[in-house]
């Protein structure tokens, strides 16, 4: 039959654990070191800097993507050309004047000088037309 355990036995109350050598002697120094360490104050700029960098990166990526899509999508290029016909014309003329040379286009960009005698002659021959045009 097993002997009844009595936990009030003085031997059982003894501390069965030990500590590493000089642990308690070194502990006060370790605590003192930790107390001495004052964490450096973190400024608002150091907090905001990485977040700002991240936001800027996203913005750059977004605008690059947007730009690429806008420039290289055929539909939008067509839309742009419809909105600005003069700009397109200028662009085409400057890029390759030979390929797009046309008498009609040429007439828009060059100013012909008309002899004043020719104008007088025209008005004299077609005076009836001028008269008709002036009648309300």
């Amino acid at each position, binding site marked *: 039959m*097993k002997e*009844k*355990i*009595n*936990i009030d036995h003085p*031997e*059982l*109350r*003894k*501390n*069965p*654990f*030990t*500590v*590493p050598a000089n*642990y*308690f002697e070194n*502990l*006060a120094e*370790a*605590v*003192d070191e*930790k*107390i001495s360490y004052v964490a450096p104050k973190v400024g608002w700029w150091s907090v905001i800097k990485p977040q700002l960098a991240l936001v800027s990166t996203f913005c750059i990526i977004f605008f690059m993507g947007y730009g690429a899509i806008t420039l290289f999508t055929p539909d939008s290029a067509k839309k742009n050309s419809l909105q600005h016909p003069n700009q397109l014309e200028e662009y085409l003329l400057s890029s390759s004047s030979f390929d797009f040379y046309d008498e009609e286009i040429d007439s828009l960009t060059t100013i012909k000088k008309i002899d004043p005698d020719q104008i007088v002659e025209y008005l004299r021959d077609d005076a009836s037309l001028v008269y008709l045009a002036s009648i309300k």
Partner: protein
Amino acid sequence: MDDKDLLILFREEGKERHAFDLIVRKYSERLYWHIKKMVISHDDANDLLQNTFIKAWNALPEFREESKLFTWLYRIATNEVLTFLKKKQLRSFLSLTDYSKQLENVLEADPYFNGDKTQKALQKAILSLPEKQRIVFNMRYFDELKYEEISEILGTSVGALKASYHHAAKKIEEAMQKLI
């Protein structure tokens, strides 16, 4: 130097560090064993003890001496231990392993355990108790604190503490009977 003198010294300008060093030297051993018996691992006990003293250092200027200095330090240490155990239990719950079993394994592998078979059985039996009952048992059985002091530290009535201790003692005797 008694606690009153230590606190007077702490309040003198330029003497805080020296006074606190004396407080650490006076109470580190008692607090260490209190923590160690709860967490078993020396490394954990060391971390918790250092945290206890750092918290005490930060709060000591506001200490109003409504309780004894050592009772106050015990309370900080106990709170540190309970918070630590809660975190550990949550982790062991998530990993589906029994935390008291984990502590038993730590005890088995502890290089700083120097006791015999019966003492190991006693420690294992204590580890099977709920943590608050364990704290009460350790404070009364090993640290030999009065019920009034334990009541001040834990904020529990003396009657409840007495009942808790006797329940714990009975459970431990039964557990040890099976273990030996």
